[in-house]
């Protein structure tokens, strides 16, 4: 593992651990955050590997655990992993499409000590939901939501928002109420991986963004909603003036372990070329977090170029998202082009301008769904 010789600021522990248990998934969402080349990544950590990783990270202070994928339910050892996490004192969150989940499996996971379930729904009606998911799953998801409540779990309902469903905002909010969601995450698509490939199909127009946010904010204040359902509205960063403080700062809080054991400062970082991310099969979590070149790459501000280097806001947003800088400018040390101070901000403005055209039915581009064949086709290119 390459280790970093440069001086770095004090390192805080990885409080949040995201365990991507598998890239396998029965759904085909065109905004999937998995790498576009997932079909070429075949190895998966064993049950024992995951237990070791969980133990090592917990000893460093990790406490929030996300069990994700792909679809984590595909792993037959999920309950065993959950059980280990509970014994260690994690607060464990299952992040699932709900596909294939039964009441018996929820009860099994509850018994193992799972703390909460986040279920995703793709739209407020079956036709669009099933089209986006590439799977006939809408009615089943609604059923699963009922079982989650029945089992006494707090329920987080996650709806990824994009141009195809953003105009359903009011219906989505009402569906969340009807399903008894305790938390509703309205997560505007972030354009990495598959979502970047499908950006012209997914990016909403400014008008859509503004109108949907107004609807969501008004709904928050409604009697019967306020104090009952917490609504998180994740803004689409393309429409912001300043970049997000991505991952609360690189290597400060979040640690992702990919299905094959690759350790990443964020689940999208696999797309960053040349960083040589370490693997938990070869290194301890502590060495990876504290000593690896990859995790130290963007700690502090030595790496920054202008306009970030002298920017008074650099301690607030840490230069934004490095994956976005890499994907849109070819250099991860550039400012996130979402920032209006970035000399590359034009690429964002251009995408926004094009979204107006692509929103017209006659010029709407085709969707490129997340499935194994498509991933393989990309590898051949």
């Amino acid at each position, binding site marked *: 593992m390459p280790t970093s010789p440069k001086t770095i600021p004090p390192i805080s522990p990885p409080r949040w651990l995201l365990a991507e248990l598998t890239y396998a998934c029965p759904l085909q969402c065109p905004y999937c955050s998995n790498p576009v080349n997932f079909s070429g990544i075949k190895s998966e950590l064993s049950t024992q590997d995951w237990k070791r990783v969980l133990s090592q990270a917990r000893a460093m202070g990790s406490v929030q655990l996300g069990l994700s994928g792909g679809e984590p339910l595909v792993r037959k050892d999920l309950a065993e992993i959950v059980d280990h996490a509970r014994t260690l004192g994690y607060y464990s969150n299952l992040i699932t499409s709900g596909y294939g989940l039964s009441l018996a499996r929820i009860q099994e996971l509850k018994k193992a000590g799972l703390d909460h379930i986040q279920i995703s729904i793709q739209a407020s009606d079956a036709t669009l939901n099933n089209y986006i998911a590439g799977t006939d799953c809408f009615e089943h998801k609604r059923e699963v939501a009922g079982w989650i409540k029945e089992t006494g779990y*707090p329920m987080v309902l996650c709806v990824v928002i994009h141009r195809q469903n953003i105009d359903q905002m009011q219906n989505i909010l009402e569906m969340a109420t009807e399903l008894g969601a305790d938390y509703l995450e309205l997560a505007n698509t972030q354009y990495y991986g598959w979502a970047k490939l499908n950006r012209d199909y997914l990016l909403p127009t400014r008008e859509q963004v503004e109108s949907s946010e107004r609807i969501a904010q008004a709904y928050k204040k409604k009697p019967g909603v306020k104090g009952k359902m917490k609504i998180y509205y994740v803004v689409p960063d393309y429409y912001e003036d300043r970049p997000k403080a991505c991952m609360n700062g690189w290597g400060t809080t979040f640690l992702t372990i990919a299905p094959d054991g690759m350790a990443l400062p964020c689940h999208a970082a696999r797309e960053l070329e040349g960083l040589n991310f370490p693997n938990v099969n070869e290194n301890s979590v502590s060495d990876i977090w504290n000593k690896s070149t990859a995790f130290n790459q963007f700690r502090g501000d030595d790496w920054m170029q202008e306009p970030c280097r002298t920017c008074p806001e650099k301690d607030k947003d840490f230069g934004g998202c490095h994956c976005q800088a890499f994907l849109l400018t070819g250099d991860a040390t550039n400012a996130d082009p979402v920032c209006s101070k970035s000399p590359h901000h034009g690429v964002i403005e251009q995408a926004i301008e094009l979204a107006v055209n692509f929103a017209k039915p006659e010029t709407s581009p085709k969707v490129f769904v997340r499935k194994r064949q498509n991933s393989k086709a990309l590898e051949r290119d």
Partner: protein
Amino acid sequence: MSDQIKSTSVFQFSKENRLQWEPTQNKHVILYPEGMVELNTTSAEILKLCDGKHSLNEIVSELEKKFSATGIRSEITDFLSVAIEKNWVSLKT
């Protein structure tokens, strides 16, 4: 909210949150879906007594003893009303 809190009120820590000691942080935290709040010593001691048994009177006198302090009733009541608002605890009676 603090109007609802009486000296005989009993509080119950929420089932949907978890109050836990974190050795690496050397403090108590509240864990909930996708979030965490770090607590100072006093807040943690109050919440530990939100066990469905202790009344406000009892919580006040326990903490006065623990911290050798007096006149902390209003501080405790204020914190509890915030805790109710955040759904960390519920008012049992």
